[in-house]
């Protein structure tokens, strides 16, 4: 057994408020070791004494079979003189408050808690705020660290005797679960009408009745409000769409259980695992042909965003109520999520008929996360509730840049920002649009909260070069230190490099919407060569003017006219007038503003190329939500890549991927009445072939064989699959995003990395 040793162990990561001390306590006792465990600002501090061999086994075991929410970032072991401990105890928290301790994310109700709320014999029966060490609200209710009830939204709720006893019992599953609550001492639900007048009776029964009657209820959840209505009632769905001003954007639904999900969607084991995970994100699933859900949930799209109820309140709401609930984020467009009760009544008063409120405050807004299972991994469309503020390990990123804190400001749409330190990235929740006063205030608040919760002071800030980006201005005004402008697509590329631990120069295939280019034009279809420190633009899609700027982005038919005129000149103009017969006058004006360069910025954007073709095929003439045309065109691609491409002819010349032949071919196919699916399929193949060809050229010229795929267009599953497969076949090593969004929700990481590396090169 060896002689008696004394070790001091510092464990950092998500180790507070997750039952880590009881885990250590139970383990030490079971092994007959003595010592103490306590929380500190740095993490969890263990002092352990006993025979050397057993202590060694204890140190290994402490890092295994972790409590459900715990995640260890580092475990440092030091030798110390014998203290002469007799037994093993949990020491109360001290006031120390510096370090790397991490706030856990919000977590879906665990099976034990689910059982309790359904058990008439349990004191948590039917109680919508039941939680334990393994589950419940965390990030959204924590004001500051160390994580104690007094610094959470639960501070105002004094625990009753029974809750308090469980809270203090090291072997109870509620030991030190800060949000613990019961019907006697915890938060309460109230159901009110638009005027704030209470609806009498049992809230579950009343809400069920209202939803069944087609009413819209704003439901206060973990990180904000949802707008809920019966997902099986097309009238209610259309009513919600009309009131929220969302004519076509897909609406997410919450299904009572996995059986209900299966009734309407295909669910693979990977997808089921995502649905049931403790993060409980919205998972984008393929709708079954037999599904009876109204098409109005996601017009023009065959997939549907589904989640399972993740709080006891949701579980109770669906237990006997509608099996499928629309649960769309409770905000008016351009505004952040409604958070407190008054805000909700004010902001959503004309959208919702009723409000399901409660009196536990939401301290941090946090939208639902949206993910998809793609190509044997997870694809994040939005990384937010359930994941934030958990860090992402950046393999291989350490060394000189290690301890320095870098900030990435993010973009203006779908904003997230991030902090990078010591080889880990801390991405914020989905902040969303920051171009309004409310959005800017939300951004400021989120940044302050994150800095406080993580206790990190950035020394360098990476921001987007776009002169009109509010996020860039805000970040620079909020954070002192060095400010480094980072080109949008370089940031996309760097984000993908960081996530995949790439250090050497790579080829970046960035397929995106619109981002500000180094030449002042709009970019978005870029084959780059470079690393964190810099890049060259090897290939890009041919510039086509965007007549009217943002107007073209909102109106794919305008972009289509621009592509026709660019490719075919006067003939294109005539064709445009034939394809869009009710736009004669406007088309002439579009041609003129293109010719004269009036508010018609040149763009090399993949997203706009998709828009143009979607409009040519009549799939989508106007974008009522971001990316609609590209998404709807993407729906027409084959479900799976079949091994070979059937591209239209195209040329690569002098760094430019030309579009002329492609547009000509599509026009001729349209003339020949080739069906739209076929054209859409060949268009996908063409774009894939363009990327492959350009990457191949870039590889041949540089000798590089690592390719990173980034940018919003890689959400197109067919494109991702086709390009990855072909490039791998050709001997390239292909990397893509698996933990952060490939769209603009991921650029913050690239900005932080590029800024940090440039700072290291030239500090001060």
């Amino acid at each position: 057994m060896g002689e008696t040793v004394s070790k001091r162990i510092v464990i950092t990561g998500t180790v507070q408020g997750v039952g880590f001390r009881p885990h250590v306590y139970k383990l030490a006792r079971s092994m007959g070791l003595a010592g103490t465990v306590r929380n500190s600002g740095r993490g969890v501090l263990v002092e352990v004494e006993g025979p050397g061999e057993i202590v060694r086994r204890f140190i290994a075991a402490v890092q295994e079979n972790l409590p459900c929410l715990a995640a260890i970032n580092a475990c440092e072991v030091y030798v110390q003189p014998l203290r002469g401990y007799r037994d093993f105890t949990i020491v109360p928290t001290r006031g120390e408050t510096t370090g790397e301790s991490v706030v856990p994310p919000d977590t879906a109700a665990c099976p034990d808690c689910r059982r309790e709320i359904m058990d008439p014999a349990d004191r948590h029966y039917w109680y919508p705020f039941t939680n334990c060490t393994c589950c419940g609200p965390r990030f959204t209710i924590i004001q500051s660290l160390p994580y104690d009830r007094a610094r959470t939204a639960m501070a105002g709720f004094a625990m009753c005797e029974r809750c308090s006893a469980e809270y203090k019992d090291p072997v109870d599953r509620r030991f030190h679960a800060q949000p613990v609550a019961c019907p006697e001492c915890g938060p309460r639900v109230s159901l009110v009408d638009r005027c704030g007048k209470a609806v009498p009776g049992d809230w579950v029964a009343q809400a069920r009745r209202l939803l069944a009657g087609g009413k819209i209820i704003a439901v206060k959840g973990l990180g904000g409000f949802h707008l809920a209505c019966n997902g099986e009632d097309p009238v209610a769905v259309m009513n919600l769409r009309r009131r929220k001003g969302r004519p076509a954007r897909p609406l997410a639904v919450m299904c009572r259980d996995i059986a209900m999900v299966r009734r309407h969607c295909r669910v693979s084991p990977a997808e089921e695992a995502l649905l049931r995970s403790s993060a409980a994100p919205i998972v984008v699933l393929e709708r079954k042909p037999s599904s009876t859900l109204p098409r109005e949930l996601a017009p023009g799209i065959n997939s549907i965003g589904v989640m399972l109820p993740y709080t006891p309140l949701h579980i109770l709401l669906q237990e006997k109520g509608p099996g499928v609930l629309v649960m769309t984020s409770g905000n008016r467009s351009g505004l952040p999520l409604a958070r407190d009760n008054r805000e909700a009544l004010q902001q959503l008063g004309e959208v919702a008929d009723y409000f399901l409120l409660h009196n536990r405050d939401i301290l941090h807004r946090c939208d639902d996360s949206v993910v998809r299972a793609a190509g044997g991994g997870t694809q994040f469309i939005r990384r937010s509730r359930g994941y934030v503020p958990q860090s992402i390990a950046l393999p291989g990123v350490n060394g000189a840049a290690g301890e320095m804190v870098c900030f990435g400001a993010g973009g203006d749409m779908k904003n997230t920002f991030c902090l990078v330190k010591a080889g880990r990235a801390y991405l914020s929740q989905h902040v969303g649009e920051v171009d309004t006063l409310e959005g800017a205030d939300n951004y400021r608040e989120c940044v302050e909260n994150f800095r406080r919760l993580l206790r990190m002071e950035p020394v360098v800030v990476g921001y987007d070069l776009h002169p009109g980006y509010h996020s860039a201005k805000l970040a620079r005004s909020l954070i002192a230190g060095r400010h480094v402008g980072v080109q949008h697509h370089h940031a996309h590329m760097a984000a993908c490099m960081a996530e995949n631990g790439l250090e050497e120069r790579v080829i970046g295939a960035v397929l995106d919407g619109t981002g500000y280019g180094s030449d002042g034009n709009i970019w978005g279809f870029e084959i780059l060569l470079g690393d964190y420190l810099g890049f060259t633009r090897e290939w890009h899609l041919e510039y086509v003017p965007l007549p009217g700027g943002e107007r073209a982005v909102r109106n794919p038919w305008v972009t289509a006219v621009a592509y026709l005129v660019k490719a075919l000149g006067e003939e294109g103009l005539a064709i445009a007038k034939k394809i869009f017969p009710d736009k004669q006058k406007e088309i002439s004006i579009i041609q003129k503003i293109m010719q004269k360069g009036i508010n018609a910025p040149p763009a090399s954007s993949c997203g706009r190329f998709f828009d143009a073709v979607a409009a040519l095929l009549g799939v989508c003439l106007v974008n009522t939500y971001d990316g609609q045309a590209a998404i709807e065109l993407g729906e027409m691609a084959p479900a799976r890549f079949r091994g070979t491409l059937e591209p239209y002819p195209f040329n690569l010349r002098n760094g430019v991927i030309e579009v002329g032949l492609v547009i000509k071919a599509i026009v001729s196919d349209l003339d020949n009445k080739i069906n739209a699916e076929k054209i859409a399929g060949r268009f996908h193949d063409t774009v894939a072939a363009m990327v492959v060809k350009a990457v191949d050229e870039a590889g041949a010229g540089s000798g590089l064989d690592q390719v990173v795929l980034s940018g919003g267009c890689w959400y197109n599953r067919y494109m991702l699959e086709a390009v990855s497969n072909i490039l791998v076949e050709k001997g390239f090593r292909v990397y893509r995003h698996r933990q952060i969004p490939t769209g603009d929700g991921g650029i913050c990481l690239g900005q932080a990395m590029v800024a940090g590396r440039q700072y290291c090169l030239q500090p001060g």
Partner: protein
Amino acid sequence: MNKDKEEIILLAHGDGGLLTRELVNNIFLRHFDNPLLRPLADAAVLPAQTGRMAFTADAFVVDPVFFPGGDIGKLAVCGTVNDLAVSGARPRHITASFIIEEGFALAALEKIAASMAAACAEAGVTVVAGDTKVVPRGHVDKIFISTAGVGMIPDNLGLGCHRLRPGDAVLVNGSLGNHGLTILSARENLGLEGGLQSDCAPLNGIIRQLLDKCSGIKIMRDLTRGGLATAAKEIAEAGGIDIYLQEALLPVDAAARGGAEMLGLDPLYLANEGKFLAIVDPTEAALVVEILQRHPFGRDARVIGEVRAGKGNVYMETALGGTRIIDYLAGNPLPRIC
């Protein structure tokens, strides 16, 4: 002068010789004639005034020279008159200097002079001095006009940003963006429809009525280059207050709205030549609207927002909900939507 073929401006028209004299007499003096100008001396001699005088200068290089709703001459008079009027002054006299490209049609020059004379008459000002230069082809584009103007400020009038208080009402006298769109459409031959025309007009009449009847006018600004957005931002910064505009209240007529939408331009940033912003005491807002609406240049006048305590920001509460941040335009408006 030979009347047979189209007569054009020659370099000799600007050399100070016989042709110059002929040009001044036959065109400028004929149209602008008044006792102060008539001596054609080196300087106009004006009666001395007591009190405060406002003095402004502006140059006009608009292309095209003639456009629906006006021409460069009318613009040159109105621009200077309006700069004086929004400063609280009553415009009296202006000067007019012409830089003309060799080959410019005499008939066009005459038309411009006539239009200036009409605008002067409407505004009640006189041209008291001027100058003419002719430059070789290509050295200017057709014709540039530079005007300067003086006007008297009533003794008891004190306009200025220091008077702004939270709650003050922000008003505008009518549809935004018409001039900017008209010029763009005419210059580029875009063929924007809907009877779009420039709002070019002298504002001293309507402003005089306001100042005569209201004591609560705190500041005014004409909405030329950069449009309402830029003027509001300048005032907010100078006054150290915030301005909140209501999108739903902004007057943009159908022609301007259609044209702006078509080109993807924001009427908030488009130039006007007959529009001004006034910030007034809230107790007088209704009266101001009433006075403005009775005047032909103020039919569409309305309150469009208010002053709030702040730090020099301009915001617009939009119809959809969400408050847009209005800033100076930084170059061309490039898309931010990804």
